[in-house]
């Protein structure tokens, strides 16, 4: 689900870039994630949760992982990706991809 983990500008965090474009329903993400980790804040445009480290989840799927450890960032990215795998936005995206169409936006 994520292809790139890069340090942010000041090296205080890592950014995980999704391999594919998403439009996450953050209300639904909150419903899912509150059962497995702590929801710190939901600002409508991004959701902040706390697990092994604090993570900002953006609507486009980007994650900001508040840690200076790339190992922890990678592990946390995997956990978040696993939890979000079942969300409708991602399932819908996968369906389009599996149908052979290359542009998920074409489904709109």
């Amino acid at each position: 689900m994520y292809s790139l983990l890069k340090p942010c500008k000041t090296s205080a965090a890592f950014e995980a870039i999704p391999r594919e474009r998403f439009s996450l329903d953050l209300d639904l993400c909150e419903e899912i994630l509150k059962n497995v980790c702590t929801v710190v804040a939901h600002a409508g445009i991004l959701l902040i949760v706390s697990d092994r480290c604090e993570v900002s989840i953006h609507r486009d799927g980007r994650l900001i992982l508040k840690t200076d450890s790339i190992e922890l960032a990678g592990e946390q990215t995997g956990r978040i990706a696993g939890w979000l795998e079942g969300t409708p936005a991602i399932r819908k995206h996968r369906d389009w991809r599996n149908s052979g169409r290359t542009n998920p936006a074409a489904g709109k």
Partner: protein
Amino acid sequence: MKLISLISGGIDSPVATYLMIRRGVEIVAVHMDNRPFTDEKNLEKTMTLVRHLRDLTGSPIKTYVVPHGPNHITFARNCNRHLHCLFCRRMMYRIAERIAEIEGADGILTGESMGQVASQTLQNIMVVNRAVKVPVIRPLIGLDKVEIIEIARRIGTYEISTLPGLCCTIVPRKPSTSARLVDVLGEEQKINLESLVEKSLEGMYVFSPEAL
């Protein structure tokens, strides 16, 4: 003269604060705590910077830390996304103005310089200015980043300011660079600004110069 200095963990505001202390101004520092949209390192850096300025100048600096994260959430959930940085700054000014009343200060001091970031265009500065009645002093307004960094290096704040610290994660991808006051006022009508200011003041805490 006494000024309320809006100080972050960045490069500019400590330089602005230093320049005004050097002019004999008494400073009360106010740090707007943007967590959870930043991290605790920014608060730590700010406190280190304030201690450094105190030791450098011999000037005691009382410091307020004000929770600003809840204000960000309110703006993000209710108002135009592109204007977010303007709502943020106008709220910081309002809170600083209230602390100026408490402290008997004459105005607000900021590290803004013209055109440095999206929120600091002349038009946006004018819109932000209109949030308060007290004077806003900007000693860096005509300096460019290189000049500011030169001073920061000379006074020893640059090394502290450039320590790791998470940038604000709620900044919009395309912030407005030429906001219109009428649009900002219209958006702000969607929320209870006075209630936000009061809650921010209720949540703030103070470090006396001795406690730093």
